[in-house]
């Protein structure tokens, strides 16, 4: 895209996420000026004024690139996802939430009722004697008011609309964001549906020494002071770097902290947690069923939080079983 | 070591010597036997041919009565041992039957979960749980020179996977060697004594008894050791009848293995129930055990 052709149109949107991704965009520092040189920002509710109505009035496909962060938690977010999909030539799932659900996706361990109960009733700072929880419809003298529907399940962006590119990370590293912008500007994009980034895992960027792996016990981080040079996994600490896409420069392992997997799975892996489970289970150093069970249960008290911390919503099973729904399904 | 104790009817009367010696020996070996409160007859073999459910329920009642903190029960009588085991395992294999039995037990506000209690024979317990070293430690009157035939009968070793070989058991042989006795070969050691056949057809029963006596005599056994009241009764009480029937002259004392163990341990013979047997054992013992016990 050369300057003579005129500026492109860029949109950014924030759905179910913490907002860190919005800040991450600014973390590219002065390079944001370079972005501004090439793009008109047509929609960025966090930073510029703009209304949904404006977007609705745009022609379909008139936005060149939309960076969409956050998962889909409510009907409003889904509406925005669909709208921006229709208006954008290239839709990028920006950050871990849009890509694979991220921490908000862990809400899939509960359902709407349980979440409302916690948020609006049970937290110590909550005083709610009337048990008021958000309702989709509310009657007021003037008529009906609507709130977006709060879903039972968090979806990822690509679970509701087709996504062209992904930029994982919680949040994506500034360098990777810039790499992606350059790739878009230069038109050097991988095939649609790809992640713009590395095709290998964190170990590739990790300076620690690795030998062959055999694990007799999994340690939690507070149980052991790890050696600073040896592979953390070989010391029994669950470091997710083996299964997590490179791109961060192995930030966590470099400071003696295990990788927790925010960059998601490597290319063509359809279930991050399954990959990590398979890898870790394979190197458990026991052939005795009871011992294996003990190693697993003692060392991994929270398997979902360990293996699906960032990817539960995008995993094959997507969520914890809703017993009510399952019972209904059986009838 | 605590075990529930199921003496059974025979030990109350005809085999009182067994009960006396079991208690005396157990006491010495530190085995605490807690007699099941309000136990009833196991029904021996007869009930099963009449009505299985009743037979089972009668037996299961004893299992259900065992104090919850005990998980093993000892039965010295072979028939009692077999019946308790049989019902426990029938209940395990057939949950429907177990349900029915428990319905019967419910009438007495009782319940038994199959597998809760492990049914043990006394010999197994002494041999396995006490063991060689502890037994040898207790011997004050070694039975050196006493030739014993160890008679197991049928019910202890068959049909359940037991603590010994079902065809040629050896545990009592080993136990007797530990206390210094000379164990003679007794190839018929697991053959039948005739059981209740004495009441049905004497010639058949006597022939079975004769074979056992004959074999023990052939191997010059001083006495035959039993661990079943029925066996002891048949061999002892009918010995004279067998002799007159076949024109033989066997004079082989038949005693319970616990009685002889008690002798080796230096216990008082009276407390071991000696004198209740018909073919007297004491003369043989006195003759053979010339060397006095160190502490006697």
């Amino acid at each position, binding site marked *: 895209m050369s300057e003579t052709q005129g500026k492109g149109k860029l949109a950014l949107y924030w759905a179910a996420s913490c907002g860190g991704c919005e800040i991450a965009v600014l973390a590219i520092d002065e390079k944001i000026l370079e972005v501004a040189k090439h793009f008109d920002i047509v929609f960025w509710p966090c930073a510029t004024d703009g209304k949904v109505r404006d977007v609705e009035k745009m022609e379909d496909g008139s936005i060149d690139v939309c960076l969409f962060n956050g998962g889909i938690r409510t009907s409003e977010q889904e509406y925005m996802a669909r709208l921006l999909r229709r208006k954008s030539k290239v839709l990028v799932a920006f950050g871990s939430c849009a890509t694979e659900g991220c921490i908000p996706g862990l809400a*899939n361990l509960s359902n709407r009722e349980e979440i409302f109960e916690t948020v609006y009733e049970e937290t110590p700072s909550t005083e709610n004697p009337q048990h008021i929880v958000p309702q989709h419809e509310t009657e007021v003298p003037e008529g009906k008011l609507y709130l977006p529907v709060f879903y039972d399940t968090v979806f990822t962006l690509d679970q509701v609309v087709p996504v062209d590119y992904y930029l994982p990370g919680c949040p994506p590293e500034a360098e990777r964001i810039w790499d992606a912008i350059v790739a878009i500007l230069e038109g050097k994009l991988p095939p649609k549906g790809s992640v713009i980034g590395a095709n290998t895992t964190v170990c590739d960027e990790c300076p620690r020494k690795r030998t062959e792996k055999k694990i007799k016990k999994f340690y939690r981080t507070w149980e052991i002071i790890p050696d600073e040079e040896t592979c953390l996994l070989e010391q029994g600490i669950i470091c997710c770097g083996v299964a997590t896409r490179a791109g961060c420069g192995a930030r966590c392992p470099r400071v003696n902290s295990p990788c927790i997997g925010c960059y998601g799975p490597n290319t063509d892996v359809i279930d991050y947690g399954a990959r990590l489970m398979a890898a870790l289970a394979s190197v458990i150093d026991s052939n005795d069923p009871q011992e294996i069970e003990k190693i697993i249960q003692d060392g991994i008290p929270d398997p979902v939080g360990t293996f699906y911390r960032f990817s539960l919503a995008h995993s094959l099973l997507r969520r914890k079983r809703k017993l009510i729904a399952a019972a209904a399904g059986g009838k | 070591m605590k075990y529930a104790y199921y003496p059974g009817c025979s030990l109350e009367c005809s085999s009182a010597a067994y009960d006396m010696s079991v208690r005396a020996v157990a006491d010495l070996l530190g085995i605490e036997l807690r007699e099941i409160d309000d136990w009833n007859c196991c029904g021996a073999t007869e009930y099963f041919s009449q009505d299985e459910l009743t037979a089972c329920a009668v037996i299961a009642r004893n299992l259900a009565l065992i104090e919850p903190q005990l998980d093993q029960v000892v039965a010295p009588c072979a028939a009692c041992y077999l019946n308790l085991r049989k019902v426990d395992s029938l209940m395990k294999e057939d949950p429907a039957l177990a349900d029915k039995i428990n319905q019967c037990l419910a009438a007495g506000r009782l319940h038994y979960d199959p597998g809760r209690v492990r049914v043990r024979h006394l010999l197994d317990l002494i041999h396995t749980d006490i063991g060689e070293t502890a037994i040898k430690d207790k011997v004050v009157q070694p039975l050196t020179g006493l030739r014993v035939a160890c008679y197991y009968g049928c019910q202890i070793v068959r049909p359940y996977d037991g603590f010994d070989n079902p065809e040629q058991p050896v545990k009592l042989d080993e136990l007797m060697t530990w206390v210094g006795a000379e164990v003679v070969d007794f190839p018929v050691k697991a053959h039948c004594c005739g059981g209740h056949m004495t009441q049905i057809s004497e010639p058949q029963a006597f022939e079975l008894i004769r074979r056992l006596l004959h074999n023990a005599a052939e191997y010059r056994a001083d006495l035959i050791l039993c661990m079943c009241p029925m066996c002891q009764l048949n061999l002892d009480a009918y010995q004279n009848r067998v002799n007159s029937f076949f024109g033989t002259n066997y004079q082989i004392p038949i005693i319970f293995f616990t009685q002889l163990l008690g002798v080796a341990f230096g216990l008082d013979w009276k407390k071991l129930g000696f004198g209740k047997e018909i073919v007297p054992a004491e003369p043989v013992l006195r003759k053979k055990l010339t060397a006095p016990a160190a502490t006697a």
Partner: protein
Amino acid sequence: MANDTFEPKIVGFLCNWCSYRAADLAGTARIKYSPNVRIIRVMCSGRVDPTFVLKALALGADGVMIAGCHPGECHYIEQNYKAMRRYYMLKHMLRALGLEEDRIRLVWASAAEGQQLAEHIDKFVEDVRKLGPLNWPANWQENGERLHAVEAIAKEHEESLEVLP
């Protein structure tokens, strides 16, 4: 109960050397067993990736069976142990996700054990039948409410756009 007519759909991953051949032998010996287990051949139970199991459950299977050579008899020496380790890891995960861990089962069957494999299959089918249908897709779908709500927003906005100018 609805379970009377419920026929579980079960995916079976059988290793090429022992359990698949056991299934072949069950056939040759004309041993009849439940038709509910549909067999996928893998070279070794060690090839079974937890992803396979999750994928089958996610797509609507009610249970997944993994079968390999007996421990110590693996055609690939010891790879069935790796299958075993992953199996326990998977069970740990399934429990955490609210699934009955009995929906997956690891069994061993040598090439000579057609009868045993058939028994394993029958037992597993019955056990899954007792658990009832899983119907996982229904677990995350929002029962139509979701679509309705999105369309309602679109309609609301359209109407207000019409009114505005």
